[in-house]
C-alpha cells in the first residue's frame, strides 16, 4: 500500500462520488447503468466467512464464495430480474446502501486505485416491518479510464457468517 489520498484531494472526491453513484443506481434498480460502471474484465467476489478462534484470523477459508462473478454472469443475474420471474426480487424489495469509511490508496499500477469502504445494506421486502441487514467491508480496485472511474474488482468481506436473509442477487 502506498500514498493515500486525503479528503481534499480531487481524486478522493471522485472516488467517493463514484461509490455514492453506484449505490444510488443499485438502490434505484438502474442495474444496466450500474453494469456499465464495471470494466469488461471485472470480478466480483464475496467469500464465505466462518467463526474461528484467535484474533486476526478473519475466518476466510479458501474455497467457497457467495459471489464469484464476472461481468457476463452478473449480466445474466440482472437479465433474470427483467423476466419478472425472479420471485425473491419481485415485488422488488426496497434497498438502502450506506457507504462510509472510504480510504483511497494509489495501487501498484498507475491507472488503478485501491479503495476500502464500509457498507451497510438494509432491505425491506413485502409488507414485513423487519429489515434485512448486511454489513461488510469492500476492497475495490477502481480503474481510471478515459470515460472516468470504473470498477475492476470488488472483494466483499461480509461481517455475517450466517446471514438471515432469504435471497440476495447482488450486494
Amino acid at each position, binding site marked *: 500500500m502506498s500514498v493515500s489520498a486525503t479528503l481534499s484531494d480531487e481524486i478522493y472526491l471522485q472516488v467517493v462520488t463514484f461509490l455514492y453513484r453506484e449505490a444510488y443506481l443499485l438502490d434505484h434498480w438502474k442495474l444496466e447503468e450500474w453494469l456499465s460502471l464495471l470494466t469488461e474484465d471485472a470480478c466480483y467476489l464475496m467469500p464465505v466467512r466462518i*467463526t474461528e478462534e484467535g484474533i486476526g484470523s478473519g475466518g476466510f477459508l479458501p474455497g467457497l464464495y457467495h459471489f*464469484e462473478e464476472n461481468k457476463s454472469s452478473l449480466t445474466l443475474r440482472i437479465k433474470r430480474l427483467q423476466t419478472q420471474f425472479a420471485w425473491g426480487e419481485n415485488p422488488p424489495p426496497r434497498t438502502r446502501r450506506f457507504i462510509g469509511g472510504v480510504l483511497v490508496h494509489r495501487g501498484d499500477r498507475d491507472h488503478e486505485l485501491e479503495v476500502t469502504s464500509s457498507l451497510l445494506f438494509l432491505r425491506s421486502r413485502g409488507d414485513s416491518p423487519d429489515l434485512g441487514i448486511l454489513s461488510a467491508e469492500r476492497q475495490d480496485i477502481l480503474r481510471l479510464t478515459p470515460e472516468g472511474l470504473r470498477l475492476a474488482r470488488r472483494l466483499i468481506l461480509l461481517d455475517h457468517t450466517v446471514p438471515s436473509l432469504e*435471497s440476495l442477487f447482488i450486494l
Partner: protein
Amino acid sequence: MAARTRSGLRLSDGTPLKELVRVEEGRIAARVFTDPEIYQLELERIFLRCWLAVAHESEIPHPGDYVTRRMGEDPVIVVRDRAGQIHVLLNSCTHRGAEICRASRGNTREFVCPYHGYRFHLDGELASAPAHEWAYDQRFDRKAFTLHRARVGTYGGLIFATWDASAPPLEEYLGDMRWYLDLLLRRTAGGVEVVGAPHRWIIEANWKTGADNFIGDGLHTFMTHRYAIELGVLPNDPLIGWFGWHISIGRGHGVAMVGAPERIPLPPYLGLPQELWPLLERALTDVQRRVLERTATIHGTVFPNLSLLNTTTITTEEGVPRVPFLTLRVWIPLGPHRMEILSWFLVEKEGPEWYKEASRKNYERTFGLTGTFEEDDADIWVSLTRANRGAFARKYHVFNYEMGLHRQPRPKAEWPGPGDAYWGDYCEANQRTFWAQWRHLMAEDGG
C-alpha cells in the same frame, strides 16, 4: 399438552395427529408446517431419534479437526480424535452447560470450558476439573462427567449421528438409499470432498419445506424457476422435469433420476468430465453405470432433513459449457417458522482443476444464499410458511398430495435400481413416503 391415546398421539386441541397426514388419500394438513406444538414434538420424536447428517469427513481430515453443527436445535461438535475416530459431542459442559467450543471450525488438542475450566478430551471424556481434590473433597468421579456423545456412523464420507441408542445401524437406516448415495458419493474410488466451508443462512420457513421439495418435486421447476426458461437457461418445455424416474425408497427416503426424451442429446454421466469416466466405470456396477449414463439431474431427501442435488442442466454464463455440480444440504429446524440451511458443495477429488472450478461457480451462482435457483425456492417456502400460520389455515387448510396416487411402480425390467420406481417425476409418491415416515414417528411409533 399432547397426549397418547389408543388411536395414537392427540394434540392439545384433541386432534389426532394421524388425521393431519392422510397420505393414502393424498392429503396433508397445512398445520403440520406451522404449528408450534407439532414442531416441539418433531424435535423430540424425529430429531432425537433419527440418524442426522452433520458433516463430511473431508471437513475434518486431521486429528483434532472439528466443526460445530446442530442436531435439531442441539449444538454439537463433530471432532476427529488422535486415533482418527470421529465423535459427535453435545456442545455443553457437563458442569453448568456453557458452550465448550465457540468457533465453527478449527483444530484443537482438547476442549476447555470457559466458565470453570473443565477440560475434555476429544472423545468427550472429562480430563480434569480445576482444583477438584479440594473443590470436591477428593470424591470427584471424573468418568461420570463425559460430554453427551451421540452414536456416529459414516457412509460415503458423510458423517451421521443419532441420540437414540436403540436406533438401527446407519446402514440399515439408509437401506436402499445407499445404492443412490453411491451414485453421488462413491462414483469414483477417491469419492467426493467438501470445498471450503458450507453456505449457511437462515430463512423464515419451516424445515420440512426443503425436505418435501427436494425429495420429489419435479413439477415446480417449470414455474418456480421460470426465469431460467425465459432466458433459455432451461428448455421451454412444460415436460422438462417429467422425463425421469421417481423412486420411493421407504423409511421416508426418496430420490429422482431425471433424464431427457430420446430425441434430446445428453452428455453421458451427468456431464462429468471425460477424465473421470474410466474411474467411474471402475467404481460403479454395470447397472449403476447404465442408469447414470442418461441422467441429467438427481435430487432426493434422506429422512428427515438431508437433501441432495446433482445437476448438469443449468448454465450461469453465456457461451460457457454446462458443467454438473453436487450439493448436499441439511434443513436445520430453528423454530416452527425458521430454519438454517447448511449447504455443502462437493466435487470429485480426482476431478481436473478446470472442472472443479467451473462446477463450483455453477453451484455458487444457482444455489446457496445468492444462488438464483435457491432464491426462487426460498422465497416461496417463506411465503408458504407465512401464509399458513393463521387460525383458519391451521384448522381447515389441507394440501393436495395426489400426484401419481393411482400410478403403479414399474417392474424391475424397466428400472433396475432398488425402490418403488414410478415413471415420470411429476409425482408425489416420494413426498407421501416422507410424510408416511413422519406420521409413523410422530403419531404411531411408541417412541
